[in-house]
């Protein structure tokens, strides 16, 4: 199986993630799309790591997963705090800095 197939699949998954961030107004789905983009990058890293026989790519995947977990925890806590105040998860209605 050629490496370019894995890279192309990763590119398509990343693009779907970008579309999710741009199209969806629900902040939780926006978060899911960001996770999808991180996953697409992880797939690229693992494919390259195996193709070059270098274990460092997989180490980087570990760190990406840790940062994704931390980001999800803090981000969802922010969503809960915002929902408690504004009673919405629509990103168009969250305009704290626009008055």
């Amino acid at each position, binding site marked *: 199986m050629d490496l370019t197939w894995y890279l192309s699949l990763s590119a398509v998954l*990343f693009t779907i*993630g970008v579309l999710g961030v741009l199209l969806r107004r629900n902040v939780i789905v926006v978060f899911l799309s960001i996770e999808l983009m991180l996953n697409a990058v992880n797939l690229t890293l693992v494919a390259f790591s195996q193709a070059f026989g270098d274990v460092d790519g997989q180490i980087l995947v570990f760190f990406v997963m840790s940062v994704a977990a931390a980001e999800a925890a803090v981000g969802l806590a922010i969503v809960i705090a915002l929902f408690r105040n504004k009673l919405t998860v629509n990103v168009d209605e969250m305009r704290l800095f626009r008055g």
Partner: protein
Amino acid sequence: MLEPFLFFVFAVFALAGAVGMLVSRSPVASALWMVQTMLAIACLYLTLNASFIGVVQILVYAGAIMVLFLFVIMLLNLEEAPSLKGFSFLRAGAFVGGVAVLSLLLTAVAGAADLLPETSDTMGPTGGTLPPTSVEELGVALLTRHAFTLEIVGALLLAATIGAVLLAKKRFV
């Protein structure tokens, strides 16, 4: 000949999950589609001979992170989103942006195709010469060359845990 077949099966599953996540109206359905994508990507790691990363993907992403998402969605008791049908300038712009990102990435992959290492058609990208990555190899690299980064990630996770508890407490914001 099995590996290309497995790749296409799991790639179709991953893409179907991603598209389902994008278009489904209920956030719970989006999260469940996302679980399918995570599992398919874990299987792709297995076809790449990176078995430990595949297992960690299932444990951390499909297990911990997606359960956290589902808990929060259930806590918030959300209504269904309006469907994505109909024209708006935002959607047209998003479509143009998506096409631009995809063409950029695929052009980069096609342009770098000559630089990639030679692989055979029947084996994995490893070409059959490299053994599957062992947990031992990963652990040695993680705890020797990358030990400092590991410490920083530990501090980051601790900070994120404390921050999440503080933010989710009542009367904080």
